[in-house]
């Protein structure tokens, strides 16, 4: 079993209208090769679940400029002025979540949890219209779990089964997104032999990963 494919094949599995999870915190840990592969294609109407939508002209920011993104679901879009403009021009919908609630709802989506309760945001503007429940006397907000059609993630090393390890703070949203999509494609710096990754250090076991694309490959 070898899950390695070329980038063009990976991109061909994404369809217009899909909801995509894209790993990374800013550009760190972001699958930049896969994103580049989506540029200048006919893909459109994408919903992107990602902490940010890249930076001006970089990463997911390029897909926003190409008007491929219909909606962004994430926690912090202010750092990319192109996203702010697209939102103001009504070219882009935005669904804003506290970063911890975003992360937890992705984990829940991958873990068969239908929804959960957090205190974060209770009593603030983002809780308007949201369901409140008291648990052990404290107020919590309900949050449904989220899933995507495709997760595009970035890892450091993989073996050909698809076991993954990450590099430093580039780990961020990648391991949880790997669990929460129908199709999971991991862009990796290096593919090593099965057995080279220690069973104790593997962060994402291979059952979560469908395909591997080499960041420096075709």
């Amino acid at each position, binding site marked *: *079993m070898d899950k390695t494919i070329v980038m063009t094949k990976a991109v061909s599995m994404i369809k217009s209208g899909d909801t995509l999870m894209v790993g990374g915190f800013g550009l760190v840990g972001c699958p930049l090769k896969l994103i580049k592969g989506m540029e200048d294609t006919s893909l459109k109407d994408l919903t992107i679940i990602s902490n940010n939508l890249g930076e001006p002209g970089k990463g997911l920011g390029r897909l926003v400029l190409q008007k491929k993104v219909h909606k962004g679901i994430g926690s912090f879009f202010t750092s990319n002025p192109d996203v702010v403009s697209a939102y103001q021009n009504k070219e882009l919908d935005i669904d804003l979540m506290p970063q911890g609630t975003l992360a937890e709802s992705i*984990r829940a*989506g*991958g*873990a*068969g*949890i239908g929804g959960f309760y957090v205190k974060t945001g209770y009593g603030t503007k983002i809780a308007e219209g949201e369901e409140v429940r008291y648990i052990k006397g404290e107020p919590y907000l309900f949050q449904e779990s989220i899933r995507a059609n495709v997760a595009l993630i970035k890892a450091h090393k993989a*073996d050909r*089964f698809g*076991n993954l390890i990450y590099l430093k703070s580039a780990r961020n949203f990648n391991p949880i997104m790997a*669990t*929460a999509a129908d199709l999971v494609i991991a862009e990796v710096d290096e593919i090593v032999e*099965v*057995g080279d*990754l220690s*069973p*104790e250090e*593997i962060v994402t*076991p*291979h*059952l*979560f990963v469908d395909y591997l694309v080499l960041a420096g490959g075709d």
Partner: protein
Amino acid sequence: MNSKEVIAARVAEELKDGDIVNAGIGIPTLVPNFIPADLDVFLHSENGILGVGPTPEDDKIDENIINAGKKPVTVKEGASYFDSASSFAMIRGGHVDVSILGALEVDETGQISNWAVPGKPVLGVGGAMDLLEGSKKIFITITHTTKDGQPKIVKQNKYPLTSLRKADLIITDLAVFKVTDNGLVLSEIFPNSSMQEVKEKTEGAFYIDEKLKST
């Protein structure tokens, strides 16, 4: 092969390259012995292993590598360890392709009971409910009757259900049943048995596969 091995060997035929498989205690533990060597089939153990290998020789036991039945096992190349919450996230989240489970009873709709006996204290549920709820496919392995000859495939379970989720395939020492929306379909009779024996020893209603009728 004894009757348990017949069952295990037949289940193994259903597995495909790349499958993630959780095999419960009892007959299911025998299944890995019958998986062809050229298939990459990965065994998941809910206490936190993906990539369980064969039972070790007595002098090679590592007390820190056990399966969900608390028996010593080994791990294969490419295996990984994880905590219990992550392990059940895999199961509930739909990341396990097949769970192979034993059962006390299966009813004629394919629902199973395998965790509690009425009248006895119920002090164990373990991972069975999670596996039934979350796995993409459920294969049930049972001897066709109990030790005292009572059918295990029944009209209605006497024991409490493990889940409303139905099994996909039931494999006994006599026959194979597919579970469909319309009920059980007998799809295969083993050479050591006959249509008459299967009918006699099965309480629950079942259809007979067209192919089987013509033979």
